[in-house]
């Protein structure tokens, strides 16, 4: 039975994702099934539904379910200067190229709560590039975007952020950029001067400008292969010849149909450069 017919739970998952799409235009239908299954099971258990179908009924009839579902369906695990060696490579190898441009546009795609965005802004400030740069920070989850725009983090995370920043070759002290109160650390609002926060979906939206550098880390791991190709296609079309694309530590363009449009720029840090192809 199990081999011949699709499992009931998998049918329910497909139907729930259809419901989310038709009701709210959030399209998770081409997300990697293994991790969607896991997170929808979590949602079902923690929200107290007996089946995923029962949860689907609420998704359709109760608009308050959308933000709750998004919390499960979009993974928000990040740190400032996460994988310090990635930021060190940007500083040492990408920045010298970016200096040659009179103005810069940087796109942090899938910015979640903003940790990576602020890491880049601080790095650009340290390198004297912030003034000529416009940062676009995009995500599909409005709650995450609002959090990114606020730039407030739990104080317990600051020690890790500070250590990462140091390992990333930080030229200033991270404490120059935040104030603390009530177990929170609030990033200086001057860091947002050149940032545009925007709702943008790699699944359903289009290219919105020419970028010199796109950073999209640990976002596409949740996509299936065809959807990854769509997203990478957007990056390809956003980047001029010699533009840069940075991915997560264990992501690769090796399996992409767009592999020929990029060359490895810093191989071990998954930083690619756009070719003419």
């Amino acid at each position, binding site marked *: 039975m*199990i*081999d011949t017919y699709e499992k009931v739970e998998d049918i329910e998952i497909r139907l729930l994702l259809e419901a989310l799409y038709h009701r709210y235009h959030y399209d998770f239908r081409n997300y*990697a*099934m*293994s*991790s969607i*299954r*896991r*997170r929808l099971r979590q949602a079902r258990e923690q929200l107290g539904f007996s089946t995923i179908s029962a949860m689907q009924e609420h998704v359709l009839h109760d608009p308050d379910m959308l933000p709750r579902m998004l919390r499960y369906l979009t*993974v928000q*695990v990040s740190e400032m200067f996460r994988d310090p060696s990635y930021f060190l490579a940007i500083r040492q190898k990408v920045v010298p190229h970016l200096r040659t441009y009179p103005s810069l546009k940087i796109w942090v795609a899938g910015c979640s709560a903003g940790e990576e965005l602020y890491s880049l802004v601080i790095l650009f400030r340290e390198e004297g590039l912030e003034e000529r740069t416009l940062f676009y920070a995009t995500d599909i989850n409005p709650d995450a975007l609002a959090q990114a725009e606020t730039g407030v983090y739990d104080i317990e995370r600051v020690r890790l952020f500070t250590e990462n920043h140091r390992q990333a070759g930080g030229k200033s002290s991270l404490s120059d950029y935040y104030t603390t109160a009530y177990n929170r650390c609030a990033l200086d609002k001057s860091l947002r001067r050149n940032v545009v926060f925007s709702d943008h979906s790699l699944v359903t939206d289009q290219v919105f400008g020419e970028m010199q550098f796109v950073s999209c880390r*640990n976002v*596409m*791991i*949740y996509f*299936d*292969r065809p959807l*990854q190709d769509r997203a990478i296609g957007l990056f390809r079309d956003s980047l001029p010849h010699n533009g840069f694309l940075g991915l*997560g*530590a*264990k*992501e*690769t363009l*090796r*399996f992409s149909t767009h592999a020929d449009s990029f060359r490895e720029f810093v191989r071990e840090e998954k930083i690619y450069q756009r070719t003419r192809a």
Partner: protein
Amino acid sequence: MSKTPEGAVIIGASAGALEALSSILPALPAGYPFPIFVIVHLPPKKRSVLAEIFNEKCRLRAIEAEDKEPVEPGVIYFAPPNYHLLLEGRSSIALSNEEEVLFSRPSIDVAFESAAEAWGDRLTGIVLTGANHDGARGLQAIENSGGTAIVQDPSTAFARTMPDAAILACPKARILALPEIPSYLSSNFK
């Protein structure tokens, strides 16, 4: 492109993993027909050299999996540090950045459960030495999907907490000493 393998093996190990794996993986014959997924608890912030070590020692190719890595017969796939490894059907691997489970990323339970989902009764799951309870729930999922559960004999384990927990969760599991595991795997192409 090689064809999709007909079965798979998944191994979870923690404290004492290197030694335990050293008596299993290098003993597997060239041309072994199944992919072998290996989940080891590792420090999150360091590069892992496990794949390089075992690629040297083994007759099979050993690599650290990247996202959407295609699954091929006779290849040993190590979960990278700081990511969960999931099986995306039988044809590829998906990585995930989700929260740690039992303080672990990669989590053995997460990997085992997704492998059980993908491979059903064509899967053999093995829990080796370790000092926490990761793997017990995943091995149970493998058993419930009709797969084969194997646990390292706790009395021979560097740390017996993990095999003990796995046996408690899966009373029907085969309990084998380390040297028996590669012979079992080589003779049971279920």
